[in-house]
Every structure is written in structure tokens, then in C-alpha cells.
């Protein structure tokens, strides 16, 4: 079976350790299209235990807890698919102060 890869460049920032945000590159093996949420769980599971993102999901694309900025545009990570053999950039979504990496303290409920 042809091996496919998604290249993700993810914005990292730990206010306790880093002077400013930087991008870290990941190459994730995939078998087909995956949602951004799936991609992040795969990275957490097999590539990097330190990456911070919100794991809550509502299974219906409504709660917006999972939002991230994908290639500059804010999307719901649970409902947005990424094709194999593509390169993407992930950043925190805005809407509040960055806690760490992709986790934001949403100022409004």
C-alpha cells in the first residue's frame, strides 16, 4: 500500500519556557484523509507527548472547543479534513490568550 504523509507545521509556545512562539514540523503517516482533530490525536499518541490541544469533542460540530487556525483560517478541527500528501500550518485560533501551543483561554463562554 502506498505510504502517505501529512506534513504539519504547528505553532508551539510555552509561556513558562519560550520567549516567543515558534513552529515545529511533524510528518505523520496516514492511510487516507483525516480530520485535523484526528491528526492532533495521532501526533499526541505517537509523535510528541508535549503538544497541547483541547481534546473535548461533541461529535456534532457544534461546541467550537476544537477550533484552530488552519493555513490562516479558523476552522473546527473535528469537521475539517486534510488530504494525504498535503502540507498544513496550524496555529492557535485567537479568541483569547494562548495558554500553551494550540490551547486558548476562551474569554467568552
Amino acid at each position, binding site marked *: 500500500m502506498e505510504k502517505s504523509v501529512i506534513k504539519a507545521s504547528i505553532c508551539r509556545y510555552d509561556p513558562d519556557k519560550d520567549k516567543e512562539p515558534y513552529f515545529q514540523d511533524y510528518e505523520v503517516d496516514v492511510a487516507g484523509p483525516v480530520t485535523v482533530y484526528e491528526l492532533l490525536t495521532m501526533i499526541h499518541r505517537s509523535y510528541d*507527548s508535549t503538544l497541547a490541544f483541547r481534546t*473535548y469533542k461533541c*461529535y456534532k460540530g457544534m461546541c467550537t472547543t476544537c477550533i484552530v487556525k488552519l493555513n490562516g483560517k479558523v476552522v473546527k478541527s473535528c469537521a475539517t479534513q486534510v488530504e494525504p500528501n498535503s502540507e498544513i500550518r496550524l496555529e492557535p485560533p485567537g479568541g483569547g490568550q494562548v495558554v500553551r501551543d494550540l490551547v486558548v483561554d476562551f474569554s467568552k463562554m
Partner: protein
Amino acid sequence: MDVQRFTTDVVVIGGGGAACRAAIEVSENGLDCMMLDKGRPGRSGATPCALWSIQAPFGPRGRDNRDTPDQFFEDMVRGGRFIGDQNITEIVAFDACDRILDMERYGVHFKKYDDGRFYQTPMPGQTYPRSCFMIENGQHMSTVLAKEVSRRDNIKVLKDFFVFGLLKNKDSVVGVVGMDMLSGEIVAVNAKSTVVATGGYTSMWGFSDNPPTLTGDGVAMAYRAGADIVDLEFNQYYGTDVIWPPSVRGTVVLYELMIEEFADGEITDKYGKPIIDKPLPIRDEAIKIIFNTIREGRGTEHGGVYFDTTKSPKGEEKVREVFKTMTPKHYQFLIDAAGIDLAKEPLEVAPASHYQCGGIYINERGQSTVDGLYACGECAGNFQGANRIAGTALCDTQTMGAQAGSCAAKDAKERGAAAIDEKDLESKLGVLKNFLSKKTKSIRPISIKEEILSTMDKYIAPFRDGKGMKKGLSVVESLKGEVPKISVPNIKKYNLDLMEAIEADLMMDTAELTFESALFRKESRGHHNRTDFPETDNKSWRCHTIATLKGNKPVYSKRDVIYTRIKPEDVK
């Protein structure tokens, strides 16, 4: 380790329907309340995942004027296969309408007829159509309740806050200790009454339709604090959750919409042959049918059955209308995340872990068997019995949520303040310190979590047997020994691995109790189906299964069910 300290009258652990309603009731009683939510208020737990249905016997103020609270009571008692405690069922049945009216006052929108009566849908298990229709579903309900909580000056909410221990002073629970995920700070809250409203532990199974954060922290903590735990073997599955493709795995697809009034489609085997007759059975029956179909080799490629509306006599457009009216968000989500249009193609579905009927044993005041400790919502145990009928879970959050909040508040007024026992606090922090310490050979919490998840999937399935469960139990026992070897990165803010390590530690106890409770009960009833004891044994087993910590091991016993209005011998 630095510990931040707070003192309050009543502390509520949770952030969903039950927690918010309990906190609101504490506030109504004029006391100070702290609500500690594992996630974001209005967007945490299972309440946001819920659909439209919340039962209340409005009768002439609703769809069918023959309906009464007595009928609602009877439906729940029968549905629970006669092992729900009726002192609690009474409160749910008779308070439901008032609690719905409260919800309306807070801002939840219900579908109404032109003359102002509540529109109600039929759902299996209801003698008369009784499910009130929340137009924007559980998400809106959660947002509205969270807003109501935030309006009140005497409720302080800590969000993204993971409570990992109940603090005891001698025989009473005097508060909690937890971790603020955003700041990384450890916080101890000293309170006169503690209400656990942490939801179920459906996400201890690999295939579940609940958020991954629902790992049953509350049940494990209450058990460790010495509270009786009840009926953990009654694990409700939802029969038709998406099993393929992975991007939408776990999304609920309502089989209740297959009735003639709605989509009029079929649940079929891999050959397209319908497997469930109408009128649709209630959940435990439907799950049995689906599970047997898969077991007999007539399941789909990925281990499910088909949810198929393509042959509905109503045609594609009308079917699409049904989904867009009844479950618009799910319908759209399947398109966005997987390119699937429910009205045009069959979908592979299978039973997934959905709800826990058992939990912390309570009385009709929401009191556990430990002084100072209360519970409500899914994490509380003994009212659903062996099977829960649709629309009662949300109803439970509002009725028993208010009840537990009210009683916790009243008792807090009588109870004097008791300080935290520093030794107890230290021992709880010791577990964290161990996870954060470097080890030469360490394990990641996710590998332990994944093993528990697959062990539960395999051995506590809709159908289970003694041999398999003993195997599962031995896996859990060996994993217990691995937990202290966990090492997590030394990060302060939002340390996902540390959160998963604590979850893994707590899950050990809940898994052990579930396996042993299921082994203890040697019969089949409702959602506990043993292939080695397939009959329902009302002579020996029309009772509760109780698990209690004695020393450092659980002991199991039977306890009588509380019957008030309907005794089993009075009915056919």
C-alpha cells in the same frame, strides 16, 4: 508543591446539566458555591452532546392529555427492570415539569404548539409521547445553564479544572483537591458540602459516543472516599453509533428516527435485510438484536450493521427534511467531517458505550453513604435501574441536580465547617509528584489508557461472560501495577500527559469495580447480559449490587431495592 486554597459553603464538581442545576440551587439557597468544571462551562461533559429529548409528563399542557407523573413513574420503573430505587424515581417523575419550566425561564427554547402546549415526540419506553423538544438540543441547554450560573454572584466557576481527589477529615468529606489546567496550579477547596456531578464513564470504552474526558473520575474518587458504589454492571450502549469512517466514529445516529412518523428507514444486516421490527423496541432490546446480527456473521465490513434510509417510502427529499429538522447538526457534521449524506447512502453503525446506569449510591436527598458527600446526574447510581429509557438522563440532571443542590445547601447551613486534613492532602499530591518524577524506564499514560479502553470493549461488551470478564479483570490488575511507573513531561500549563496519568490512575478502580460487579451478578437483566447466565433471576437478583472499599480492597454485597408506589408482585 504549592497549593492554592479556597473555602466555600458547597463545592460542585462538574459543569454539565446536573452540576449547573445543583450550583444554581445552592445559589438560590443564599449560600456560596464553587463549581469546578473539567472543561469549558457550557461546553463540557455529555450534556452538550445530547439531542432534543427531555421527558416531562405535561399531559394536558403537552401532547397527550392522558399522560401523568404517575405514568412517567411507571414507565421508568418498568424500563429499569424493577431495580431502580423508587424514592428517587418519584422525585424525577413529579418534579420534571417544574424543572422544565425552570429551564424555559433560564432561556432554553422548547418547541410548542400554536396554543402554547409543549410539543412532545414519542420515544421507545413511553406510554404516551413525552419527550419535550429542545430546539437547539443539548448544546443550547448547556450554554443556557452555564449562563445562568455565571449570572449569579455567589457561584464562582473554575474552568479547565481537573479535580482528582476528595478530601476527608475523619469520616466526612470536607472538600476537594484539583489541578487548574490553564495555570498548572494545584488548588484545594474546603467546603461544608461536596456535590459530585462528574457524569458517566462511557469513555472508558474504546468505542463510545461520549467525549473523551468522561472517564468516571467522580465514581472512582467517591469509592476511594468510602462511599457505596452501586450497579456498575448496567452499562448502556447506544445501538446505532457510527463505526466507520474513523473521522465520525462515535457520532450518534438515532434509530428512533426510523419510525413511520419520521424517516421510515431500516436497520439492516450486510445483505440489506431489515433486522429490527417496528414498533421499535427500547434500547436494551434493540442492542441485543444488533449485537446478535454482528455475532452471527451478518455484520458489515467494519463490524456494524447498516442504518439505511435509501429504501424509505418517503423518498430522499422527505428523509433529508426529517434529519434537517430533528438532528440538523449531526446531519451536517457527517457531511463536513466524512462526506456522508444520511439521506442518500447507508451508514455503518454499531453499539457503542453510551451511558452508565449505576454509580454513586444515593438516597432521595442525593446524599451518598459518606457524610458531606452528595451526587447527582449520571455519576449517581440507583434510580435508572437496569436500563434507562430515552429522555430521562437530561430529566435526571435537572430534577436530582436541583434536589442534591438544595439538600447539600440545607445541610451545609446546619453543618459546622471542618478543616482539611493536611495528611490526606499530602497523600493525594504524592501521586502527582510520582508522575512528574523522572524514571529510567517509564511508561506513557496513553498506553495504559488505550489498554483499559480495549479491555473494556472486549470483555464488558453488550454481551459478556464470566471467563472473558475474569480475563479482563486480570488485565486491569496488571495495569494497576504499571501505573506508578508512569512518567510525564515536566510542563506546568495544560499538561495533557499529566491529566491522562491521573485519569489512568482513577480509571483503574472504576474498571476493577465494573468487572467485579458484573461477575458478582449472576443473571441477565436490562443492560447486563451474561451469556453464561442468560435468564433473569428475580428470586435471587432483583436487588442492587453494592461495592464498598474496605481496607484497600472492594467488597461486594446485595442491597434491597426501595419500592414505594409499585411493588413487582403487583404488576404482570
